[in-house]
């Protein structure tokens, strides 16, 4: 660890100007990321934005073409083996052997991370217990539900107690209850001092877990900040005006252009206006519509969400936003 940078000793992950090309396609176009010890860093972006490529580079699976990437001060290109000893990877691509039992999967990772046998036997059982998989420990993983499989996958990333954890879309494809469940587990890990880099296309996931969020699109970082900071760039309040048809929506949009940043929803009939001065702005909008004889079907005043930020920054919504993950907890896969 002689090459650890003294400049920013708190940066557990330090990425500077990283470029990755696949033939003519530029997957990462000069990305900078800094993740502080004991925090959760969210990489937010749509499919194909470059999130997974970034994780693959940092976990030594891929080699980048330009720039430097360090984990705990170790250059991932120069000493990948030292990096591998200190990281864990879980998520949509990392996987478990479905013909092996949960216990066998964890023990295999223990062996391959070169832990003494007594330690990996004990750790495997601890992780099965902690992630609520003990009842299924001796069943092949192919019999597990989606949520159980993700928990096992996450467990497999933790057998060697890595101080840095990479989670690549950890809850993609999970039902809301399992997602909530996994979020809880991740929050516990962070409370224990693990540094986490998380990729997600779910805004609520970044909102809930990440201390700092970088929005990436087309291989570039287009914004970075806390969830609150990103939302603050949107203005204080959003007024959502649902008009009866496209024509009246066009007129409303034209009419309200001066009030604040404005955009249209995919349905073509909903106009969103960002107003900076709260109630005053809302009244102004109501007055303008009234004066022009435009009567909306719906008129909603709300706080901005990360979804709004994303739409503003990228010009498109994330492809798949969960409607409401905070539904009551249904116990899946329980004995």
């Amino acid at each position, binding site marked *: *660890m002689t090459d650890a940078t003294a400049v920013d000793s708190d940066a557990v992950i330090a990425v500077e100007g990283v470029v990755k090309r696949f033939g003519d396609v530029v997957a990462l176009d000069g990305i900078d990321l800094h993740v502080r010890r004991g925090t959760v860093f969210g990489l937010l972006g749509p499919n194909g934005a470059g999130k997974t490529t970034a994780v693959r580079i940092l976990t*030594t699976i891929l080699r980048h073409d330009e720039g430097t990437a360090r984990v705990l001060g170790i250059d991932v290109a120069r000493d990948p083996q030292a990096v591998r*000893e*200190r990281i*864990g990877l879980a998520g949509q691509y990392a*996987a*478990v052997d479905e013909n092996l039992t949960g216990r066998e999967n964890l023990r295999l*990772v223990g062996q*391959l991370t*070169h832990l003494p046998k007594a330690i990996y036997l004990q750790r495997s059982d601890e992780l099965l217990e902690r992630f609520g998989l003990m009842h299924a420990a001796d069943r092949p993983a192919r019999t597990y539900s989606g949520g159980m499989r993700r928990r096992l996958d996450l467990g497999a990333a933790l057998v060697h107690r890595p101080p840095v954890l990479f989670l690549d879309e950890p809850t993609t494809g999970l039902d809301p209850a399992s997602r909530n469940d996994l979020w809880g587990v991740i929050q516990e890990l962070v409370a224990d001092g693990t540094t986490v880099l998380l990729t997600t296309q779910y805004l609520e996931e970044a909102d809930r877990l990440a201390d700092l969020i970088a929005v990436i699109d087309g291989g570039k970082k287009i914004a970075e900040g806390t969830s609150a900071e990103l939302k603050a760039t949107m203005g204080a309040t959003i007024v959502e005006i649902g008009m009866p048809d496209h024509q009246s929506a066009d007129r409303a949009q034209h009419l309200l252009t001066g009030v604040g940043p404005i955009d249209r929803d995919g349905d073509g009939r909903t106009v969103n206006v960002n107003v900076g001065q709260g109630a005053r702005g809302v009244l102004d909008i109501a007055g303008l519509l009234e004066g022009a004889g435009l009567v909306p079907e719906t008129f909603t005043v709300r706080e901005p969400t990360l979804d709004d930020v994303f739409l503003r920054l990228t010009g498109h919504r994330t492809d798949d936003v969960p409607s409401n993950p905070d539904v009551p907890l249904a116990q899946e896969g329980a004995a």
Partner: protein
Amino acid sequence: MTTTQIRLGDLSSGGASSAHRPPLGWAVHDSLAVTKRNLISLTRQPQLIVFSTIQPVIFVLMFTYVFGGAIRVPGVDYVDYLMPGIFCQTVVFGAINTGIGLSDDLQKGLVERFRSLPMARSAVLAGRTSADLVRDVFVVLLMLIVGYAVGFRVQTNLLGLVAGIAVLLLFAFSMTWIFAVVGLKAPSPETAQAMSFPILAPLVFASSAFVSTSTMPGWLQVFANHQPVTAAVNATRGLMLGGPTAGHVWESLAWSVAILAVFAPLAIRSYRKAA
């Protein structure tokens, strides 16, 4: 419980690997772990075991009782002539599973996980081909029992039998590396399987496995007499039945070594590139 807990800091100061080096080194340790994983995995997929053993048994029965009567090989019982060919066919077709297994690991994301672990890079390939070698040992022993049941008898001695099996297994091992490359290049396990058959069919059927190559048209004989399956079958036949042996054995060993020399590095390169 608290006594054996390692704090996070322990890993960042020197890593886990330097703690207790196993006697044969980490590459062997990791390859054995992956081999064991593949063998466990194999025993949990009964359909794989069934198909990799039932099919050759059907071949034995079919060639012995259906085609056998029509095939004349001078100076030898057809069942004795046939069995070394069947042994070879079985292990060579079994090599397809190496490619399917690797392709499956790639598709399911297991290779991704392995690559993020501080394990020996060679272990995924070595563990796969070793597990397939172990499977071949079992399949050949099973076929030997089936062969004895239908009248096959070794004409030389125990040493000939063991040496014959050894030559076969080395050849089978070299073939698994060819299909490792196929599996790593194929976009899916299904494609890996589909790609393998056209490679194998001419090698296995245009060989001396089931009939003497002298019964084939001249142009086909040129191919059949100069390809690795014929070499392996002739060597095994010589060792188990007698007759000209040494030349065939050297030829087969040369093929196996040559195939390994070309395809093992190719497989390692494909593994590094596969994402």
